[in-house]
């Protein structure tokens, strides 16, 4: 019985933290988010060298062949400093191809995604904002040379930098399909939006007569199941990154509470400051436990994996936005100045809430999963 990390994972955590402290302090993050792509290509290349971009990719395709629990360790650390990168999106795209790509598709894409030379993402949400698999409306029509897609995917994470989009659609007959759409292909247009959280990239994918050849259609028999799995993995990963960010926010606020004096005492002396900080700690520990278990359950294909994911994300979606607001409020006026970092964390918690399903979504899902 060991509900903890392996020695290798603990080493990785230490290495990641050291690397990020050195190369991605928040001062750098602030510079990167002002650039058009919103992250550092140089840092991305270093992350690739460390093996992070290929963490989930099997070794035979140039990856490290590790599991979600290990990726979670890295994401907690990138979350802590709000380090921007398409790591989650890229991992999801790679996982999609690893799960249901043909050997040719895997050989074509996995090495590049693993090495970070191509960036992938999942393009699933549409107008109507339906996260559930049933809500896919984008129709694929049979045409010469394959399936033709006309429509749009919105709120696509990391769209601005993505080279490859794993797109969900309705195949003729109504089944869910997953297709590979390359940036720059005929009829593909990528739009960049200003994100609520500047350390996150977001955009839209417009498909105007894009044709998916057979090499671009992922094995369709269980695409719906794969999509469901990707959404669960996404929820677990953003929760892990979010709880890392929450730990960062708590640490900053605790430091502030120890240093800032009011009426002759550090404000951390007052229970009005102290108790909300203690409550944050309770929430962070609880989300950690739920998220660690969810990642493990997904890795192991445990029976309760879906329930575990929804519990983790539901708890995080409720608790973390409140935590972000409380941290800013405990800072008083300076907390919401551009100059202080704490407001960046607040924005991350707001970004996290709907990402891969908010509390309403996941509690309804839990009810549907027979939990009540």
């Amino acid at each position: 019985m060991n509900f903890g990390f392996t020695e290798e994972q603990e080493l990785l955590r230490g290495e990641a933290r050291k690397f990020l402290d050195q190369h991605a302090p928040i001062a750098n993050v602030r510079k990167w988010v002002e650039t058009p792509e919103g992250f550092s290509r140089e840092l991305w290349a270093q992350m690739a060298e460390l093996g992070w971009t290929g963490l989930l990719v099997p070794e035979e395709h140039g990856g490290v062949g590790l599991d979600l629990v290990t990726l979670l360790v890295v994401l907690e650390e990138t979350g802590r400093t709000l380090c921007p990168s398409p790591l989650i999106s890229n991992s999801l795209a790679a996982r999609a191809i690893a799960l249901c790509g043909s050997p040719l598709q895997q050989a074509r894409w996995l090495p590049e995604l693993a090495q970070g030379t191509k960036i992938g993402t999942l393009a699933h949400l549409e107008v109507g904002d339906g996260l559930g698999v049933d809500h896919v409306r984008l129709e694929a029509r049979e045409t010469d040379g394959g399936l033709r897609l006309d429509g749009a995917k919105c709120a696509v994470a990391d769209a601005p930098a993505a080279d490859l989009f794993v797109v969900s659609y309705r195949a003729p007959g109504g089944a869910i399909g997953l297709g590979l759409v390359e940036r720059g292909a005929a009829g593909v247009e990528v739009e960049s939006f200003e994100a609520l959280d500047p350390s996150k990239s977001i955009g839209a994918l417009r498909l105007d007569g894009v044709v998916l050849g057979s090499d671009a259609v992922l094995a369709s028999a269980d695409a719906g199941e794969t999509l469901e799995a990707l959404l669960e993995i996404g929820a677990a990963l953003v929760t892990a990154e979010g709880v890392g960010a929450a730990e960062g926010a708590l640490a900053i606020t605790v430091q502030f509470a120890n240093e800032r004096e009011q009426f002759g005492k550090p404000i951390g002396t007052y229970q009005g400051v102290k108790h909300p900080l203690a409550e944050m700690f309770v929430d962070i520990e609880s989300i950690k436990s739920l998220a660690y278990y969810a990642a493990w359950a997904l890795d192991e294909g445990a029976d309760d994996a879906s329930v575990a994911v929804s519990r983790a994300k539901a708890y995080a979606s409720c608790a973390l936005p409140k935590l972000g607001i409380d941290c800013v409020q405990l800072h008083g006026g300076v907390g919401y100045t551009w100059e202080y970092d704490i407001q960046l964390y607040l924005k991350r918690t707001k970004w996290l809430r709907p990402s891969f399903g908010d509390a309403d979504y996941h509690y309804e899902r839990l009810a549907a999963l027979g939990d009540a």
Partner: protein
Amino acid sequence: MDFQLSPKEEAFRDEVRSFLDENLLPEGERADDFVGTWFQKIREKRWVGFSWPREVGGGGGSIMEQVILKDEMAQRKAPPLGSCFMGLAWVGPAIIQYGTDEQKQRFVPEILDGTYHWCTGYSEPDSGSDLASLKCRCEREGDEYVINGQKIWTSIAMWSKWMILLVRTQTAVLTKHDGITCLLVPMDTKGIDVRPIRNMSGGAMFAEVFFDDVRVPVENRLGEEGQGWQVTISALASERSSIAEVHGLIRRIAEIGDLARRKVKNGRPAIEAPSIRRRILEAETQIEAMRLNGMRFLTKQLKGEPLGSETSVNKLLRAKLEVDLGELALEILGSDAAVRKGEGTLDGGRWQDLSLNWPDVVIGGGTPNIQKNIIAERILGLPKD
């Protein structure tokens, strides 16, 4: 209980309504120069400075008439009752009460006309919620005061021509409220450096103001030397029950309800999610409580009782609502909330901005923790920290 107006009050309300019928076009139809004309017209009606005595150019309106005027204006989304916000809110009242005749003659008409903006130099970096602990140094040299120090959270300092400033003229004092002096300072004086504070939503409403050997003539002092705390706090303390501001919240929750009907989330209008519907109803209930609290406090005022710390009740409710309404709107928006600006962002990203702008109200007016201390200590009689 009686929510009827007296015949005189009704007549006044009808006057206000007729004026609005005649002069306030719906928001889309207003001409470019509308606001200028508006200010001129309400100035002529003496509705700018409506509570001030008629002899200084105010309207001499009764408390109930003030409430009626603000209420009608707010309900119709009229522009503000005058453009010089801080001048009308507390600089003018302080000058009327403590100013010399010269000061009154010079400043009061310009405040009423909205000739320029005033800003308020009270808060300092280390004073936080403890306003009276201010340290901005001021020494008298002959007929001048020489100021060195810093102010922070000075709203609209970058667009203001004058500042009402609190400085410390004496450090060896019995209580920290002594030794503070109030000065009226032209913002173009040599040695004043205004640095806007960019906030998390990207805008800048506040500024830091640095004073480096800033010299101000003695006649710019408002009230006696060392009495600055009384001069300024009396105006700050004359809080009004703020029923009119509730109209903004009423409008906002109605718009959020509308948003929940328009926005499709998980394939159905967001309003059909029970948790969204419930939270809208809860917010409406809290806003109605605020409105009615305000009316009870107003009734006290009308009966001639001083309004004390009760106003903290609505400040706390408002702080909570400002945050909650922003969060509620974002939850309704679902995934779209992650996009701040971009095609298809509902209402041009207004709700995202809103969710980042609450600190203007929540922290600016004294943090919730401070409001709770005020209620606990001043109303309930619990010991000080």
